[in-house]
């Protein structure tokens, strides 16, 4: 078992960060420590119990050799009393251990769930929809609100309060390196908090079955040092600039002429659809289609041309874009930094 564990952790090292066994922040670390404590204690108990269960297979441990053999066996009263005492002891031990486990568990629960421990936390509203995530950085100043999709950047060392809900079915927000999961339920808002203590990219995924593309509903949490985060944040506040380049201008026109504009928003343009992800800063994202494909031009072209072959059943319309329109459109989208 140890070796398997080791092997699996080796397999993970250097790959995408999506594991509860390598916590990157305070809440996840408390949970991982609790888990290790449970694991160690329960493994020890397991070994003891199984040893006792298997020992009788070796004859010398049966402890009844002195007693006469019959068609059916009736151990002496002394043996039975001895066994009863041992069982009583084992039961008492079980109760005590469980009591301890409950105490540890409840105190960890208090420390890791609910509202974040510090009042200066960042507040991020996550809205899950079949099958992508809308991310909104709440702010009392309306001009400081940032909309993003399928990717959130957080500053290292600062707790981030998550207020999550859903627009359709139940989803669940789970970034295992940072925190346990929290269901996002339509007409309810659930609160949780995450924190990253070291920079990195952590992959999260919807954890509650939500229909056809449950498998392709991932998001990335990018933890950055505070100054890098602020830089990112101020960039995200900017609306999309009007393209200067004629090809990109043509691309913008293509976007507005086809059905794209019905569903997507690009701030700074007339595109204000609320149905699909906000594309104002599409090109700055790591992935497209909720973590399904790396964000590059080829993938974007494939995704626009035939989304149903990449993510069957998703709600992006298959829009027949004429070949001569495709290149400008891609150029334009690639310019949305």
């Amino acid at each position, binding site marked *: 078992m140890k070796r398997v564990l080791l092997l699996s952790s080796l397999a993970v090292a250097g790959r995408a960060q999506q594991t509860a066994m390598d916590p990157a922040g305070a809440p996840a670390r408390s949970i991982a420590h609790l888990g290790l404590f449970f694991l160690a204690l329960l493994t020890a108990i397991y070994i003891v119990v199984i040893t006792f269960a298997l020992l009788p297979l070796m004859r010398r441990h049966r402890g009844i050799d002195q007693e006469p053999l019959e068609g059916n066996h009736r151990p002496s009263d002394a043996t039975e009393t001895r066994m009863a005492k041992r069982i009583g002891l084992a039961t008492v031990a079980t109760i005590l251990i469980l009591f301890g486990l409950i105490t540890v568990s409840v105190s960890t629960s208090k420390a890791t769930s609910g509202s974040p421990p510090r009042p200066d936390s960042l507040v991020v509203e996550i809205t899950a929809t079949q099958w992508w995530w809308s991310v909104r950085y709440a702010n009392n100043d309306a001009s400081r609100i940032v909309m993003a999709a399928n990717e959130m950047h957080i500053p290292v060392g600062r707790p981030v309060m998550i207020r999550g809900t859903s627009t359709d079915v139940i989803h669940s927000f789970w970034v295992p390196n940072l925190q346990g999961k929290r269901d996002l339920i339509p007409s309810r808002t659930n609160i949780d908090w995450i924190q990253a203590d070291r920079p990195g990219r952590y992959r999260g995924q919807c954890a509650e079955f939500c229909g056809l593309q449950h498998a392709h509903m991932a998001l990335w949490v990018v933890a950055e040092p505070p100054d890098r985060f602020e830089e990112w944040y101020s960039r995200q506040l900017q609306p999309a600039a009007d393209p200067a380049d004629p090809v990109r201008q043509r691309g913008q026109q293509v976007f507005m*002429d086809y*059905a794209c504009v019905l569903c997507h928003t690009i701030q700074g343009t007339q595109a204000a659809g609320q149905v699909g992800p906000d594309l104002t800063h599409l090109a700055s994202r790591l992935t497209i289609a909720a973590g399904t494909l790396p964000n590059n031009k080829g993938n974007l072209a494939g995704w626009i041309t035939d989304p149903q072959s990449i993510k069957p059943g998703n709600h992006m319309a*298959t829009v027949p874009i004429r070949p001569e329109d495709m290149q400008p459109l891609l150029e334009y989208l690639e310019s949305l930094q």
Partner: protein
Amino acid sequence: MYLRCLRNLHSYRLLSAGLCLLAFSACQREKRELRPSPTRLVVFSDAARQSDIQPGGRQSQPVVANPSHGSAYEISEGARLYDWYNCSGCHAGGGGGMGPPLIKTDWIYGGEPANIFDTIVKGRPNGMPAWGNRIPEYQVWQLVSYVRSLNNLEPTSATPARTDTIQQDTAGLRPRPTGVASSGVTK
């Protein structure tokens, strides 16, 4: 013992006949083609112009089969698009508003699938925009099926009993038999 009895029953034949029947009734309803075929991706770029030559009145239409007819999945997609493309902005949940009602109504431009298809694609005078130049054919048919399902023109087995929204009509509330006016019962 089981097999012997099945043989006695001739149930193989019975069972397969039953299954065929079920399959027949299920195939259209449960059809779910996630990837529209290329032929159904047409957008009608000249739709707006065409609509000008057919102002008002009911047109006789060639019978065109609605490829989405009776498919539960396509009707539900239609419902989604109805909301997403903001049909509800004018027609509300079907009861009408800025635009004419779509439920239990005499269709101004005809209620056959082909009529509704035309209305969506080409638009109509007095406010109905032409959508044909934006949305592909397969989505138009999904909308057609949904709109028809509002009037029970699609099989009820393929139509959901309700949506996860506030009830648009007051169908659930009825006046007391004593004659209390139903207007007193508003939601």
